[in-house]
Each structure stands twice: as C-alpha cells, then as structure tokens.
C-alpha cells in the first residue's frame, strides 16, 4: 500500500511517499532529513502530536502549557479535557509540571511561559 503524507516536523513540509506492506513501513521517499523518515513511520503506525494549549491559573487567568513530548493523536481531545480541569498556582515558570504522566502516556504537561 502507498500513502502520501506532508511532513510536519519542520516548516519545509516535505511531501513524503510511504510504502507499507502488512502495516509495516518498507520505504520512505521525499524526505530531506532523517526526522522525516521517522515521522512517516510514526504517522503510519502510531501517529502522535504535541498539544499546546492554556490552563487556568488560580488568579482567574490562563497560562500557556504543552505536552513535553508528543502524545497519540487519538488522545488529543482527552488531553484537552484533562488540561481544562487543571489549575496552575502562581508564580509559575517555564518547565513547571502541571499534569504528571498525562492519561498514563508517560508524558507530562508543562508550563511554557513565566507568570508571577
């Protein structure tokens, strides 16, 4: 089976052609770096995305947060649900952990801005 993908690893956005046999990636062409090949393999077997969003702060505002590693794509909205029920206490700084081991993925949600 053949799949055409647009690489999302960097702003170049290479057009990738992926050959799959029985669900296993056997060939990737069109990538201009090794990370593109890895993206193609991940995308065809276990697609993942980094989530960037905001969490509520105790003072009634919001603060930007992200998953410190990509999470499975089908958990995106579950991740949003978890983050939207979290509260960040101030002061908060870049790298502070908001949710540890999000949904059992081993990925943490961390703060991405400083707020005093």
């Amino acid at each position: 089976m053949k799949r055409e993908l647009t690489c999302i690893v960097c702003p170049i956005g290479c057009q990738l052609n992926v050959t799959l046999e029985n669900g296993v990636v056997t060939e990737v062409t069109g990538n201009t770096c090794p990370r593109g090949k890895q993206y193609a393999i991940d995308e065809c077997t276990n697609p993942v995305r980094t989530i960037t969003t905001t969490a509520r702060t105790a003072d009634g505002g919001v603060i930007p947060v992200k998953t410190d590693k990509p999470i499975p794509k089908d958990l995106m909205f579950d991740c949003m649900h978890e983050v939207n029920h979290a509260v960040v206490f101030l002061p908060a700084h870049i790298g502070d952990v908001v949710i540890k081991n999000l949904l059992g993925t081993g990925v943490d949600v961390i703060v991405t801005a400083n707020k005093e």
Partner: protein
Amino acid sequence: MREIDLVIIGGGPAGMSAALAAHEAGIRDLLILERDEKLGGILQQCIHNGFGLHRFGEELTGPEYAWRYEKEVLAKNIPFMLGTMVLDITPDRVVTATNAESGVFQLKAKAIILAMGCRERSRGALNIAGTRPAGIYSAGTAQKYVNLKGYLPGKEVVILGSGDIGLIMARRMTLEGAKVHAVCELMPYSGGLARNIEQCLNDFNIPLKLSHTVVEIHGRERLEGVTIAKVDERRRPIPETREYIPCDTLLLSVGLIPENELSKTADVALDRVTNGAVVDQDRQTATEGIFACGNVLHVHDLVDFVSEEAEVAGKSAAAYILGKNENKLHIPLSTDGRVRYTVPQVITAEKDVTVYFRVADVYRNVTLKVMDGERIVTQKKKSRMAPGEMESITLKASAFVDAKELKFVLEVR
C-alpha cells in the same frame, strides 16, 4: 533632552535580538521602548510550537522562544521601558515617547532601530458586503482572546484566508470546543505552510476551500452567517456557486502589513511592495542612522529569520555609532515581477550578502538568476517556489565589483 547612543523601538523578537547584537558589538548606552506590559511582542500569544528549529535546533512555543532572548536582555542589563508608546521620530533622530510614569519625554539618539512589527489587514481592507455585527475578528485578535485572556470568541466559526495564523486558530478553536466549518482562500493555493494545512486542518477534517471567498456577511447584533462563493481565475465571485454557512464567528487571516506610521514621521523611504523601509545590506534605511528589522521591514514566515535579520541591524547600528561604517557603493537590486521584492533593496558595501525575496505566484522548476546586465552573477535552481515561502540567495562580495544594478529574474522551465 537626554542624548543616547541607540534607541530600539519595539521589544519583540526583532527588538531584543537587535539590542543584544548591538550590546555584543560594544554599545552600552541603549534603550528598548516597548508599548506592551511585557517583552516578547506577538510571540507571547503564539503559544503553539514550531519556533526556533533553525536557531536552537528544537521546537519551542512562542513564549519559550521569547524567553530565550528576554533572559539574555536581563542578564546583560540592557535597559528597557515597558508600557511606553513612541509618538514620533524625526529624521535627525529625536524620539518622542510617553508612558504613565514619565509623561511625554524626548531622546536624541545617534542611531535608531525600527522593530515595531506588523499588524493584520482588517475587514475594512477587504470591502466585504453586508451588515456590521459583532463576531468578526482578525485571527490575531481571536488568538489574543483565547491564549492570553482565556475567552472563546465563538462556537461556530468560518475562517477567511489561509495564512498561518488562520490555520493555527482553526486548530486552536477546534481544540477548545468550537466547530470550524471551513477555511476559505481566495487564491488557488494556500498562503500558509504545508505542515499547518496538515496538522491544523487535515487532523480535524476542516475543509480548505481554495478559490473561495466570503461575499456577504449576515446578522444584526451578532453574526448569523456568511455567504461564500467560488471565484473565477480573475478572482471574481461566481454567483451560481453562492453558499450560505450559518456561523457566529468569522476570523480574518488575510495578510499582514508592516506597521510603519513612525517610519513615515522620520521620512524613511518605503518600498511599495513590502510596505516596509527600503534598506541596504546593513538594514540601514535611506535616512541615515535609522535601521529597520523584523516584520516592520518585511513580513517573515519564521521568527528564526527575524532574529537573524535583527542581529544584522543591531551589529550595523553599532558600527555606525562607533564610526566604523564605510559604505560607499550604491547598487540597486531590481526584480522582474515574478520575483516580487528583495530585501535588501540596495547594496552599499562590498561584502557577502544574503538577499531575501518572495515570488508572485506558485512556480515549478524554476531558475533564479541574478543578472548584471547580460552577465549571470549567480543562479539557483528549485523545484518549487511559492508566495508563502520566503526564499534567499547569497551574493558574494565579488558580485558587486563594477556592478551598476543587479536584476533578480525568475525563469520557469
């Protein structure tokens, strides 16, 4: 009036990079003026990732990228004033500014770096017919509401324009529970990065309607819907393709305009294509001692290149202040129309220069040639060039020996 070596107007990525580069080159009497309550500029509301791949080799969010520079500004004790609005600059470099603490004050600068960034084109610039209800925002305004204020501006959304901010907001609003019905793009191609079409639209099954525009806005108090239509090859709406989409929110992501009101007060000559200043390779404008960098000069796709350009401006402003600037040449760079513009627009020194440019349409299998009369100075082949992607080519110092004018020509095979 206080005399000062260098004033930098704007504390976003361009202003901070320029200040750090000038500091590195030995300038200590400098000041950043920033109208917001925080350094970082627009990066503070760009909470998505993808910044810094070129500079730092990692994917940072906007606030994280800004912090890398703010940290340096603080560590080097570079002075900055927040909540400070510059009102006027004169050609002989008197800066008039105001803030709540000092009132109106003036500075006489040896050099000024313009780093005010850009603003969004608005509904008024598009002349869309219909009523004027609430619920119509520029994509950047919606981004500010969602990411900095924590408000969701609407639930049923249509986006006009497929620039990167529009695509990013399509995903952001969807993640926060809104339904994005369509992204309409007037042109037959998207103005945004391919990766953003993929991860912001395709991931969420949001349709991208190319060659479509919004022709009418409906609703009295609040937006109730928009009528969209397909456009022909001359971008005229085709009446029989009109389609009504009920929605409460319309986001506009229809282009950015460098914010040059202050440049005009200083009589800085502007380029009619970029809407930014005409500059040389040092990013010095035609008004001596005034430099420009970042999105106020020309709109960039990537902040990494803003930082890079700002460093050139900061270093050059320092050289100018220290009397080390020995620019003698005057070689204009011209374009053939397929190449829309170049930055810089003029070469004044015999040194290697990276020239940035954008093309007017999507072209395949192209050769960019830099011509000195009939002579090809240098050329570059590429399988595809598109208006949404800034291109660059490096010219060697030798290219400028005896050259009168260098023309950028795009050949399509």
